[in-house]
């Protein structure tokens, strides 16, 4: 394939690059105890929450930034980041009419019309702009079932016992450098509680958006599914085009109690930097779920954005017969770097995990899969199946696979399959011969390649994800 086509196809600019003009209330850059006290005070938090944050901050000060991942980047200057930014409007909103029209316009541009979403798909959304939730919908319907779906700040104020009981139980403060930092300075995020035996009647959805120049975003999400309940949660995001690196270090904790099931789907499309690799979001996320007896957690993610991604949605299969699943598509183009994967920690008997990872690399990008399957000594009859495929476009990109297996129980059954392929000239010519242009042919082949993962996403989300894949690979043939 000629180089022109390669360049042409890889050269799709970040289509969602625009900045919304909303007045923000931003704290001066820097990080110390006073800043943490101020964040806590601005949010009217109870004393225990402040103590928790300060403790995390102390832990963080003693930690070092991790170096083991297969990515290189300029380390963020943590004193140059502003740790709090809230849109000026302060009161809680009951309806869309109360939302800043500028904000609504932004969502329009993204093709995410709240009204449409509400009407057509029955999705309740908790929108996070920068760090504070400004709109929450469908609260009433959910309320009738006893479901709590609100911002983290609200949860701390109104359901302190639930937050206190679960926060930090899945991702402890000292888990890793970025988790500790997040614990100290998280500004907002989503909280969700599904009561015993309740099936959440709609997909819960959060659209994240980083919107304030130079503001690091530290989301904290906590999702608790009580015994025998079910919830499907969607997380998606886009960000404005920017010239400097933006740090994002979120923590997501999932608790699936006995017999509960959580489906957590992510479509991630943060600004990846320009074609030369300048700018772009740094995405260092800690996502983990814990499964009690007979519980199940599925992570599905489609990752197309960010300059540097470092992300391992994981499952601790603590209870007997619990199930963990990880379905992932990670696309890297230009100079993007991604190091993603999962950890499946089997502790209970008859626990089962499935890992399907599809990496796609184009341009000069690097895409690594890093996975750990650990079978504990007491995990009789644990089973894992892993399939890690890499698809390369062009010969200047890289795909790397780092599967780690630690089995301490002889009854474990672990299967690992890995393939690396290139979109072949043969496939492209075959498509061309049938009248399909190279660009469409790539979209077709890539969608086929990712099908097992895309099939896991809820319908509307799958369509969006497919579009996103096409956009991010426009022009990348090799």
């Amino acid at each position, binding site marked *: 394939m000629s180089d022109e086509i390669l360049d042409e196809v890889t050269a799709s600019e970040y289509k969602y690059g625009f900045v919304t003009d909303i007045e923000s209330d931003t704290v001066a850059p820097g990080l110390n105890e006073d800043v943490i006290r101020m964040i806590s005070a601005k949010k009217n938090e109870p004393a225990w929450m402040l103590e928790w944050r300060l403790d995390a901050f102390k832990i963080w000060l003693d930690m070092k930034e991790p170096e083991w991942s297969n990515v290189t980047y300029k380390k963020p200057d943590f004193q140059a980041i502003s740790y709090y930014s809230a849109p000026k409007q302060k009161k809680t909103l009951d309806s869309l009419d109360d939302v800043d029209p500028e904000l609504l316009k932004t969502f329009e541009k993204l093709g995410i019309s709240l009204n449409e979403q509400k009407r057509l798909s029955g999705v309740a959304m908790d929108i996070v702009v920068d760090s504070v939730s400004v709109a929450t919908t469908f609260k009433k319907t959910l309320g009738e079932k006893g479901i709590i779906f609100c911002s983290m700040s609200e949860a701390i104020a109104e359901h302190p016992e639930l937050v206190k009981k679960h926060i930090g139980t899945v991702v402890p403060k000292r888990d890793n450098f970025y988790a500790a930092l997040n614990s100290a300075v998280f500004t907002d995020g989503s909280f969700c509680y599904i009561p015993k035996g309740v099936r959440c009647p709609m997909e819960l959805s959060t659209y994240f958006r980083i919107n304030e120049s130079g503001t690091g975003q530290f989301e904290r999400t906590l999702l608790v599914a009580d015994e025998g309940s079910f919830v499907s949660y969607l997380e998606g995001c886009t960000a404005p085009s920017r010239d400097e690196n933006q740090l994002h270090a979120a923590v997501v904790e999932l608790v699936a109690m006995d017999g509960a099931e959580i489906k957590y789907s992510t479509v991630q499309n943060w600004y990846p930097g320009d074609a030369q690799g300048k700018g772009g979001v740094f995405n260092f996320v800690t996502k983990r779920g814990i499964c009690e007896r007979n519980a199940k957690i599925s992570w599905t993610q489609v990752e197309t954005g960010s300059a540097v991604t470092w992300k391992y949605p994981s499952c601790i299969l603590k209870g007997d017969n619990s199930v963990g699943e990880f379905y992932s598509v990670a696309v890297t183009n230009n100079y993007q770097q991604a190091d993603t994967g999962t950890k499946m920690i089997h502790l209970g008997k008859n626990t089962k995990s499935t890992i399907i990872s599809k990496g796609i690399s184009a341009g000069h990008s690097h895409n690594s899969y890093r996975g750990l399957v650990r079978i504990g000594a007491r995990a009789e009859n644990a089973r894992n199946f892993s399939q890690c495929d890499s698809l390369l476009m062009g010969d200047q990109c890289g795909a790397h696979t780092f599967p780690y297996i630690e089995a301490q129980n002889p009854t474990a059954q672990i299967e690992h399959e890995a393939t690396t392929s290139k979109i*072949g000239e043969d496939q492209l010519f*075959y498509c061309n*011969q049938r009248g399909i242009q190279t660009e469409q042919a790539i979209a077709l082949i890539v969608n086929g390649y990712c099908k097992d993962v895309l099939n896991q996403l809820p319908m509307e989300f799958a369509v969006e994800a497919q579009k996103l894949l096409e956009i991010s690979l426009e022009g990348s043939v090799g």
Partner: protein
Amino acid sequence: MIKIKNLHARVEEKEILKGINLEIKPGEVHAIMGPNGSGKSTLSNVIAGREDYKVTGGSIDFEGADLLDLDPEERAHKGIFLSFQYPIEIPGVTVSNFIKTAINETRKGRGEEPMDAREMLSKMREKSALLEMDKSYLSRSLNEGFSGGEKKRNEIFQMAMLEPKLAILDETDSGLDIDALRIVANGVNKLRNANNAVLVITHYQRLLDHIEPDFVHVLYNGKIVKSGDKNLAIELEAKGYDWIKEENV
């Protein structure tokens, strides 16, 4: 319909086609036979526009257009179809999705509207019935795990859907069992009319029993060294290629 004049082509540094002359008129069926490696697939790939085959001389005229100027997909839009000797697999892409994309992209290339979904569906039903294909084929991944014969039948299914002007069948018979050969040949015959043409590449007479050629050509060492009517194929079946090779040393 198509006029090939003194066509020369090479792969990497090796010259494979060494002056091909061939004219096919609407309504005709031509067969090309010839020993392994003589350049039959190369010729079909060059007509279809595969990039790694470099044309070093000669011309191909297709209905008044210079074919060599066009990209493979543009040639397809003009009505050239190649049934591949070795059809490739596209994992995760269903036969129905693939053919739908092919038809609509072809229509787009011709400045036409996409095909109505209902029309598409009924056409798929009709053509898969013509080729006696099980409905489940349509929802399987393209060629993935297909048997050799299934792949070939699937090629002809696509041909039936796309209704090309010139269909090149590169050893479509190889891999087909006796019944499948009859079904596929029958399918091809049903698609024939006064405005389209077929170029059949084969090693065996048995396909030509079903799809009766107007002309038979022998390709040897990059050249058409002998042409005749259907009796030439019968003669080749009986005598092999040695006598032709001897004539051309």
